[in-house]
């Protein structure tokens, strides 16, 4: 298998997952397109480092995570690689109705560390072992972080609920 075949296989297998990962964590279609293109550009340049099998997805999540954290989107944007994808994502589409706004608000107020593990567990559907590989910590640490994050979100939602009731009574 040449490195071209390998990259095509990785891209085709994991494009939807990386697209989703980026879309969930970016505020604009431009940013989504940038994160996708920078992540796969990195994979192309380091194709020999991409692990085999399902581990490749965790590796890609790890790259996308760093791209988001460091705002490193220059190389692919500079080369104009994702112009068409960007235009496609920017197209006028019906906006999804916002439901469960109180959950979204409570989630957004959590510390970034909490949001990260909750999102990887609930949106990407990763186990704590896999979360550990993406964020670069031990499985035990990931499990602990996840447990604490759930607790904090539950507490935030309860606070919110009592506040709502208090305001309703006033």
């Amino acid at each position: 298998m040449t490195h071209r075949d390998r990259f095509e296989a990785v891209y085709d297998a994991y494009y939807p997952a990386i697209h989703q990962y980026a879309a969930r964590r970016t505020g604009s279609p431009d940013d989504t397109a940038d994160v996708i293109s920078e992540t796969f550009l990195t994979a192309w340049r380091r194709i020999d480092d991409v692990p085999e099998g399902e581990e490749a997805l965790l590796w890609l999540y790890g790259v996308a995570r760093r791209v988001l954290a460091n705002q490193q989107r220059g190389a692919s944007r500079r080369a104009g690689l994702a112009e068409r994808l960007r235009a496609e994502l920017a197209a006028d589409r019906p906006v999804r109705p916002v439901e469960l706004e109180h959950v979204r608000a409570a989630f957004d107020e959590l510390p970034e560390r909490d949001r990260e593990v909750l999102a990887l567990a609930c949106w990407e559907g990763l186990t704590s072992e896999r979360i550990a590989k993406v964020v670069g910590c031990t499985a035990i640490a990931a499990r602990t972080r996840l447990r604490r994050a759930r607790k904090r979100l539950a507490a935030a939602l309860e606070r919110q609920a009592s506040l709502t009731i208090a305001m309703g009574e006033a």
Partner: protein
Amino acid sequence: MSDIDNLVKAIDLAPHAPDQGPGARDLREAIMATQARPHRAAQRPPWRAGAIGLAAVAAGAAVFLGQVAPTAVPSPTSTSGGTALSGTSILLAAAAKAEAAPDGAYWHLKELYTHQRLWPYSENGITYRLETSELSERWVAKDGRTWTGFRELTARPLDMEAWRRDGSPTEWAKGKDPSPPFSAAPGEAMFFQNKKKHRLYWSAMPMTLKEIEALPADPEALKKRAIEAIRRDNGVGPDEDALPRTLANLLYALPASPQVRSAAYQALATLPAVRVEGPTTDPRGRPGIAVTFLIQGDRTPRIRLIIDPDTSKVLAVEGIVTPDGDSHVNVVLESGWTDTEPSPPSTE
């Protein structure tokens, strides 16, 4: 799964896996057309060896132009006939011609993007080159509304003998990609109005029409702004490597004023590695002058501009990218103001 997990799941902003659309396929192709491994600084050509600032380069242009090392870049076409100084004068002549363009309600860019690529997926084990092309259009209204159009045009084999041995197919699957194959028949037109907040990009800088119009008309000031735009994101290569493409974008790809286009031509003329290859024709047979910029360090492909020095219009922009000779060319079919309403791309 806990109740909390279910609540978090419910606020997932992208609950459905997207299909790989044309944009995703395009991205894959574009990424694979770049070098798989970046060149390191040690491989930079000699004219970049020291910490030579752009100002120094401009001031001593003649000296540095003599030191351009063509061996340091892939050179699929001969540059032996090129002379650097006439490159500068050609660009300065074009700068002088970049006069007031006709006005209109919409700024319109229409490009024909042609890609020559190896097609290795034949069931008969036969490999040959395919030429694929697509139309890409963009409109910008004075109030900031923007539209985008795409259409895949017909693909054709470049080696007829190998194509016949392959059984003369009229469709070519894109590898394991489940999306529609390249076809000898044109694809459907895609056309849509972009969201209100959609920005035009100058390198990494999102800009409004007003901001593009307000760019400086002084070449040195414009170069500084170009570097700022490039630096908006931390790239891997030297910022100067992106200058030729970034400045060239102002000539045809963005609604810059005639004064700014003129300044962009003048700024290009000061770049250390500009060379004129001489008279040529673009892929549509239109006569022009080919100008190249040697670039090294970033994955930026080598650029060849074909310009019409009489009108200062850019006719085509070629990039020669990969070791196996994949190449692409953007033919600029329209670039300027018009009163014609935006509409889906036709087959031509």
